[in-house]
């Protein structure tokens, strides 16, 4: 198989042909190759494109190059918690040292652990193809299990998180799997919130592995919007919130978990994160 390692996005785009495949970390691609599910003729390695690496901050927000390693994102302390926690939840140290955030996004597995954090952070994906540059909201990018809005040959070059998602907000992430190490999410859940004077001014919630694509839980968000800590921290409210999450998702039963469990756990994870965030939000103001 031919292999090339372009230095620029344009060079990568011009190298692309019918039987080529882009590779970043290769942790998902390597499995497809091992199972002989694909047999490309050419491999284009995106990891030498400097413009696609690293985390940078500007007035507009945060830009994360698509080839930034998951381990670097997991270790970063100047990005929202939910994203670093999601990154840390992926695979194993070895996998995190190879895998990239762009790979996790483009693989579009419903259980990808950076996807729900990116959904709640209102991330925008920068895409570049033969037809030029375009930007897509995370919510518009995922089209189904392993399906995305990418056109053939198009490259995800960067992830942008708007400043509005960074300032004055707190975030949380939790997931559960069959075991504690090397876990594949049965359900993962990310929450972004702005809490002022003990009141939720704004909130976004996303659940993964509970539908063909990462879902925003709009009804749950509405339940929480404008509520005070005192209103939220009541058993009855939390029960209703969990119940709302359980009906808002559309999980299936598969080898990783049953539908019922996914529903129960979604509610529980949401309650846990909201409890943590609300307590933290109140504490921050003390």
């Amino acid at each position, binding site marked *: 198989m031919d292999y090339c390692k372009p230095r620029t996005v344009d060079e990568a785009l011009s190298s692309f042909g019918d039987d080529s495949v882009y590779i970043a970390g290769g942790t998902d691609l390597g499995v497809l190759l091992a199972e*002989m599910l694909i047999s490309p003729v050419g491999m284009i390695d995106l990891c030498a494109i400097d413009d696609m690496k690293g985390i940078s901050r500007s007035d507009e927000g945060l830009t994360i190059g698509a080839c930034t390693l998951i381990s670097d994102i997991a270790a970063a302390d100047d990005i929202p918690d939910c994203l670093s926690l999601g990154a840390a939840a992926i695979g194993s140290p070895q996998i995190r040292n190879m895998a990239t955030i762009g790979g996790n996004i483009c693989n579009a597995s419903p259980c990808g652990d950076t996807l729900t954090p990116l959904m709640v952070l209102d991330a925008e994906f920068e895409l570049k193809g033969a037809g030029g540059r375009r930007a897509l909201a995370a919510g518009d990018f995922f089209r189904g299990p392993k399906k995305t809005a990418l056109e053939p040959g198009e490259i995800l070059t960067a992830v942008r998180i708007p400043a509005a998602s960074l300032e004055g907000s707190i975030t949380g992430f939790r997931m*559960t799997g*069959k*075991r*504690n*190490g*090397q876990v*594949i999410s*049965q359900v993962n859940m990310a929450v972004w919130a702005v809490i002022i004077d003990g009141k939720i001014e704004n909130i976004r919630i996303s659940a993964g592995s509970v539908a063909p694509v990462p879902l925003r839980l709009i009804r749950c968000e509405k339940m929480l919007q404008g509520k005070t800590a005192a209103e939220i921290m009541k058993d009855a409210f939390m029960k209703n919130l969990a119940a709302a999450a359980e009906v808002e998702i559309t999980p299936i039963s598969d*080898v*990783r*978990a*049953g539908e*019922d*469990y996914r529903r*129960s*756990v979604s509610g*529980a*994870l949401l*309650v*846990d994160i909201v409890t943590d965030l609300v307590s933290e939000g109140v504490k921050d103001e003390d």
Partner: protein
Amino acid sequence: MSEKEFAIIGKPQQKVDGIELVTGKARFSGDLRFTGMLHGYAVRAGVPAGKLKSVDTTEALKVEGVLDVITASGLMGPNLMGILPPFDQQILAVDQIRYAGESVAFVVAETNAAAKRASRLVVADIERWEPILTTDAALADDARKIHENGNITFTKKLIKGDVESGFADADLIIENDYETSFQEHAYIEPEAVCAVPSGDNRITIYASCQSPYHLRGHIAANLGLPHSKVKVVQAYTGGSFGGKDDVAAEIGILAATAAVKLERPVMVAHDRDESIIGSNLRHAMKMHYKTGLKKDGTIVARKAELLLDGGAYASESPFVVMKALIHAAGPYCIPNVMIESTAVYTNKTYSGAFRGFGVPQVTFASESQLQEAADSLGISALDIRMKNALKPGDANATNQVFNESVGIRQTIEAVAERTAGFDTSASEDADYLYGTGYASLIQGISNGAEGIDVVGASVQMSQDGSVVVGAGLTELGQGARTVFAQIAAEVLGVPLNTVTARLVDTDSVHDSGATVASRATTTGGMAVMKAAEEVKDSLLSMAALMFKTEAENIVLKEGFAVLVFDDSARIPIPDVATAAYWTGFPLMNLAFSRAPDADYDHDTHQGTIYNAYNYGTHAMRIKIEKSTGRVEVLNHIASHDVGKVLNPLGLTGQVEGGSLIGFGLAHMEKVEYRDGFIQNANLADYAVPTVMDRIPTEVISVEEANPNGPYGAKGIGEPPVAGAAAAFANAVAAATGIRFRKIPVTREDILTAIRGK
């Protein structure tokens, strides 16, 4: 001999084969390279049941680098293998497909990649049949016969006393159904063999395997060669746990057939999915249990019906049927017992040996039911176990009486003492549930009823005093080579680092059967001891001549022959060995150990069956997160009567590792089938515990010497699996107040049950 006289036995010893393992120099089968070596890859049926009409290899043969595609007609022998005759397992499918992982053709190519590519071009024309996927379906009156003799693989009964009159006397009768799932061995090294024609009309097979003699027999038969023309050498073997026997024979036959045909070395190294789909699993079992007790907790009767899902082929099913049968009553003195144990064929991957061999499944059922009884009678977990535990002189379920080495009560006492140090109560706080589970177990050591129990071993000393030990049982990671070297060093009075214990080579010692049933230390150790004693006699005779005294005045210790009445009078053993050589005294001995034979009634399983039992008691305290069902094990005490600890380092490793496999069986691991296909044939979705899932096992050893084991030792490889699995199930019941009668009890099961309560 008093304890303090041992120089090497009973002291922690590093693995004698450890250096090559930590440096990566040890050559496992898949690491071997031979000039001209080819690679073989099997084409699987991909259909759980059907009639194989034809196999078209035309396109596969056109792939560059492919030398041959062998189908059933290309095999040279009967195309049959198995554990107990008459054999029922085909190596390459002829007519009927019995499980999805069945091999239909074998591609041989210059590279592994070419073989795999070509395998996809082999076209097997299979008429699909409705697969038989449950034991109920297999036993239905109108069920299709998976094998000519029907769908019952093997069935046996154990009858002691009169179970019905026992129940009539009982104050409390508890009756329930229990179920366990298939478990995958998941050794980290997938199976691999390499067959090398040696140019002298013989063939050598290097194998990752558990039973080199099984391989030799099956390979010879299927090549149409006498056994003497086949040599099997065990390569370093990356774990086995019972799993590298049938499958090693299967790929050994395929590799050897191709090697003979093409006159080139042939390697077969399984991928992980092949290792899961195409080699045996632990039997899934359905168990109906009924126990009758008096108010004071005395068990008066126990009845059980065991149904084992054996999958497509018999493999070890007959022996697992027997072992489950014999152990179904647990380590208790019960006057009336009636057990019926049956394995059936289904269209799934065949079941066979897996560490514990039927005992973990029945221990789960038996200990769950005993705990249910204790709870209804208001008796504590340890009291009810102590009340019924076997004592020396008691008749066990097979009516066999042991007058010594029955340490079950001591293991219960040890657990009671240790658990007194922490809170064992069932309790609850805002986020968590807490509970403690207990389980006692019994596990027969060595072959017992499973057949003749013999092991060959050789001990050889060179003129420089260094020693080579070779036993017919395999090192699988459990530390057999270390124990064999320890025994030889102890007998010969030499430092452990002067002893080399080599891997098994079928040319060099007598057929010693399989390294199974926790028998390596016990029966294998006895053979090594015997062989070493003979060499010791030569050394003593020589030293007697040198000291001009009688042999009984000399001891061998610290690398010297020493006069008993003058510790400073010492001759280095190398000098004695050199002199012995030149005097013509034998410095090598080939010995043979034979465990006491089983002698029992085959209809009732009453009589002498095993020559020793390991007994154990486990306690496990857990904490369950209410919101997710996630479990954390806070304490795990594993107490076993091991007869005598030969190597504390190796022994604790066996208990810790075995316990985690038991924990996996009870909590995490489940082979998921859909329509006869395994859905999780990988290590991501088949959840083997990682380091973050480990349990904090504390090992306690009770030493009730076994007269049939070296220095009193009994095996410890298998027993911890049953203890940890059953204790976990009882811990979950204690914490949640809900009795789960099916394992694994996963996070998902726990959460679903808690929410349903």
